[in-house]
């Protein structure tokens, strides 16, 4: 026998005698030889002095008993388990799920490539394959390269569409035919004609009859699925205008082969039905193999509808979409996680507290009782408006024609919003219930109280409730002859991508933005100028937060979301809304870096630029931790040669008892620096 490398037995033991290192476990012996030494089962049988069948049984046993565990890479495992669940749940012939993230190539390209692979697998000589249209179909055609099948026909499943898009039915079918070396059978008519009568006339044409005859013989169809969201293929193809959708297709959630289906998968019949030339849903179901290739989170409802309706029996999609479809069907996410991942699901120990302790009286009194306390504590600076207990106004306002600043939002952000009312800051704050916008009535009362003939600026965070209520109040103010402008703050960079800045929420950055607005008004600038400076402050303010523990409402006293014992939530909302991403708890420096890096990536400061910094507690995080964070932020900013003009550290804008921190940077310029330095005296912010 040839000499073995070090670590392996140099001298083989006599056949059938187990080397000592395996103890007396033949399963371990067999498994070692098979998996580590790479021996064949018959060689092992010889070595162990057993039959090959026994070796096979030993190896099986070794797996069931966990002596051998085979690990499949997590991403692949996820794809496989989702594909299998989809196949079982919807009774599919087959299902392929690709990872949702895949480097440089877009999801559509990768879905196209996967679809091409599937088609290559199934296509047989002599097949007639129907094809629809859309971005994914074109990507599939472009990825396909499988010539050499004899007598294949590719037939368009519908007539043609507008030529304004590259992924027309004609283009998809002809590209696919080319890639398969197949004959292409078009449908020589538009997919949508102007009336049912025109359709009748066209259907009588022998060319079209013949082409439709080929379509009726299809063995397979490869189809895309379109959502009905505004940016979907069905809209870009000119199939549907907003009016038609509004009038006829409101129940539709998806579209395939140019036909519309409801969330249950039932056909939604509208005027287009009589005007569409091509396969219909009944005929579709008669095609033996129906391969859908579709992915993207916006398509979940549409794909689910197609699966429920039984229009599809092979599905190619991606993991996020697949998981979305399954969760929408009631699958729990945990059953789709790799086995090693399962312990990450927080298991509540028996007897653990589910009710959070709070020092309150009746929960429904908490807001008003707390506000009364705040007013008492700061009675020299603020007071409530007679008859409107939730309107806080600054004391000793001078009788000058100054722009009135009204801020506000839900309660639970203390010292927001009352803490920012005072000389040189906001003139009034209006608060609602906990985390709920105030109604228009009190906003209007505040408006009247602070209006001094120079107009009023409404300044609040971008939440749909606040926008609605402040807008209603603005309408009331306009009819009362008070000029009102509104600035909606959008500093929370985690709440929406940079391209849609206007959709972002307003959070702790409010503190700086309120300060700028208050100072601009205190300098008696006109309304338009106060508004412009406030908008500039908002555009240059960036906030991002992370939570270690959720907050809990006085009413429920339960955590508003679940966070595992070792997790933190990145990009958490200021109302206890879950964030955008959950990851294992990191150190203070790592957390500070994570927030700062995201902010700097958007802010793009030059060396020498100045910023104001706010390290804000979301409620329960103590000053000690905030200062550790600030220390790191200052180190990093110094390394970037960014000057810090002002550092605020503390609970400036909280979310009840949430544990966590938010970081705000305001990118200063000359005007903003001067306004930030303008004196103010409010309960939560004093500049002298």
């Amino acid at each position: 026998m040839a000499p073995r490398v070090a670590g392996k037995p140099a001298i083989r033991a006599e056949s059938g005698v187990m080397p000592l290192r395996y103890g007396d476990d033949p399963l371990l012996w067999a498994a070692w030889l098979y998996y580590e030494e790479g021996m064949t089962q018959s060689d092992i049988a010889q070595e162990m002095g057993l039959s090959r069948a026994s070796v096979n049984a030993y190896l099986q046993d070794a797996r069931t008993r966990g002596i051998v565990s085979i690990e499949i890479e997590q991403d692949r495992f996820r794809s496989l388990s989702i594909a299998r669940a989809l196949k079982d749940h919807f009774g599919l012939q087959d299902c392929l799920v690709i990872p949702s993230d895949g480097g440089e190539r877009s999801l559509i390209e990768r879905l196209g490539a996967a679809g091409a692979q599937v088609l290559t697998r199934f296509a047989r000589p002599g097949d007639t394959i129907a094809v629809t249209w859309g971005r994914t179909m074109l990507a599939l055609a472009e990825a396909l390269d499988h010539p050499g099948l004899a007598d294949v026909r590719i037939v368009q499943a519908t007539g043609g569409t507008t030529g304004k898009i590259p992924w027309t039915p004609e283009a998809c079918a002809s590209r696919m035919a080319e890639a398969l070396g197949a004959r292409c059978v078009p449908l020589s008519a538009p997919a949508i004609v102007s009336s049912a009568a025109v359709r009748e006339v066209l259907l009588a044409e022998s060319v079209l009859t013949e082409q439709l005859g080929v379509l009726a013989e299809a063995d397979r169809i490869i189809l895309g699925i379109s959502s009905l969201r505004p940016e979907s293929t069905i809209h870009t193809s000119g199939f549907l205008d907003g009016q038609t959708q509004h009038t006829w297709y409101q129940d539709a959630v998806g579209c395939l082969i140019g036909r519309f289906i409801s969330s249950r998968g039932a056909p939604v019949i509208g005027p287009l039905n009589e005007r569409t030339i091509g396969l219909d849903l009944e005929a579709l179901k008669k095609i033996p193999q129906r391969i859908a290739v579709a992915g993207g989170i916006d398509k979940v409802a549409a794909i689910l509808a197609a699966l429920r309706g039984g229009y599809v029996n092979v599905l190619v999609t991606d993991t996020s979409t697949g998981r979305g479809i399954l969760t929408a069907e009631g699958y729990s996410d945990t059953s789709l996680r790799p086995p090693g991942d399962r312990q990450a699901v927080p298991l509540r120990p028996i007897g653990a507290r589910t009710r959070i302790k709070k020092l309150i009286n009746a929960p429904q009194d908490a807001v008003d009782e707390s506000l009364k306390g705040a007013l008492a504590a700061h009675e020299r600076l603020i007071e409530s408006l007679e008859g409107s207990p939730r309107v806080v106004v600054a004391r000793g306002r001078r009788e000058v024609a100054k722009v009135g600043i009204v801020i506000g939002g839900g309660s639970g952000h203390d010292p927001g919003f009352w803490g920012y009312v005072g000389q040189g800051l906001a003139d009034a704050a209006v608060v609602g219930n906990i985390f709920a916008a105030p109604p228009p009535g009190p906003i209007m009362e505040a408006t009247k109280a602070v209006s001094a003939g120079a107009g009023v600026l409404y300044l609040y965070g971008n939440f749909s409730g606040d926008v609605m209520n402040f807008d209603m109040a603005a309408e009331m103010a306009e009819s009362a002859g008070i000029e009102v402008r509104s600035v909606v703050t959008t500093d929370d960079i985690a709440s929406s991508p940079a391209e849609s800045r206007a959709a972002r929420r307003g959070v702790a950055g409010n503190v700086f933005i309120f300060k700028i607005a208050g100072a601009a008004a205190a300098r008696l600038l006109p309304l338009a100028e106060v508004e412009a400076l406030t908008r500039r402050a908002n555009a240059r303010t960036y906030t991002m937060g992370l939570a270690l523990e959720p907050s809990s409402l006085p009413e429920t006293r339960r955590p508003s979301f679940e966070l595992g014992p070792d997790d933190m939530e990145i990009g958490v909302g200021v109302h206890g809304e879950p964030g955008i991403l959950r990851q294992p708890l990191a150190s203070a420096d790592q957390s500070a870096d994570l927030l700062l890096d995201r902010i700097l990536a958007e802010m793009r400061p030059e060396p020498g630029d100045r910023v104001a910094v706010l390290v804000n507690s979301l409620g329960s995080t103590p000053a000690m931790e905030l200062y550790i964070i600030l220390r790191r932020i200052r180190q990093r900013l110094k390394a970037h040669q960014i000057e810090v003009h002002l550092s605020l550290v503390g609970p400036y804008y909280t979310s009840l008892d949430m544990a966590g921190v938010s970081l705000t940077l305001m990118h200063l310029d000359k005007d903003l620096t001067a306004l930030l330095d303008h004196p103010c005296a409010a309960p939560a912010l004093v500049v002298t």
Partner: protein
Amino acid sequence: MAGGLATDGRMEPAIDALGPAQIITLFRIISERMMAARDELGMLDGVIGDADHGSSMAAGFSAVLRAVSQADGPPGEIFTSAAHEFLGAVGATTGPLYASALLRAAKLCGDSPQITVADFPLLIPAFAEGITERGKARPGDKTMMDAWAPAARAVLSARERGEDPLSQMRAALEAAREGAASTRAMVASRGRAARLGERSLGHTDPGAVSAVILIEAMHDLLARGLA
């Protein structure tokens, strides 16, 4: 009001119009059910929002009930004061949305001392229009509209088919339930849940669930009145 269980067969209307007392009863039913559903709605909301939907709806409708329980004006007046009470008590997003809905309902009732049984189902499209106008949500945005819009369409198409009022309400309720269930497959694109993106999948929208409670209350009121 007449008691007894409704049978499945055609029901002979015991009444042909609903007056102030019945509208107050409607708000009493809604208020009780919102109280009962408060925790469940809060839990649903906690997954994708800030957990306040249950308490907002409960607090809002109990304020409405307190304000209208002694009212004796026509239904239109009751709906109008319900709108103002609800808005004042709730604020938030839900306040303006249901205030607009209730004002549309008031408009539908006009000054008439009663709302006929035949017109009663039209309250649902009226609610839906008020909400759409104020909220601007589109179908599929995963909001209360995903229950209200199909319910409103179900009423209108049942009317076109000449079905009786209770069948119209039944169609509305079924459509609303299905609509609410379909929000599980939707990605939130409005409101606070929007920031969650795909993580909002698989969760039913609490606003759609409370919409079903409202529609169910309207259905039950009519069913009781006709029993």
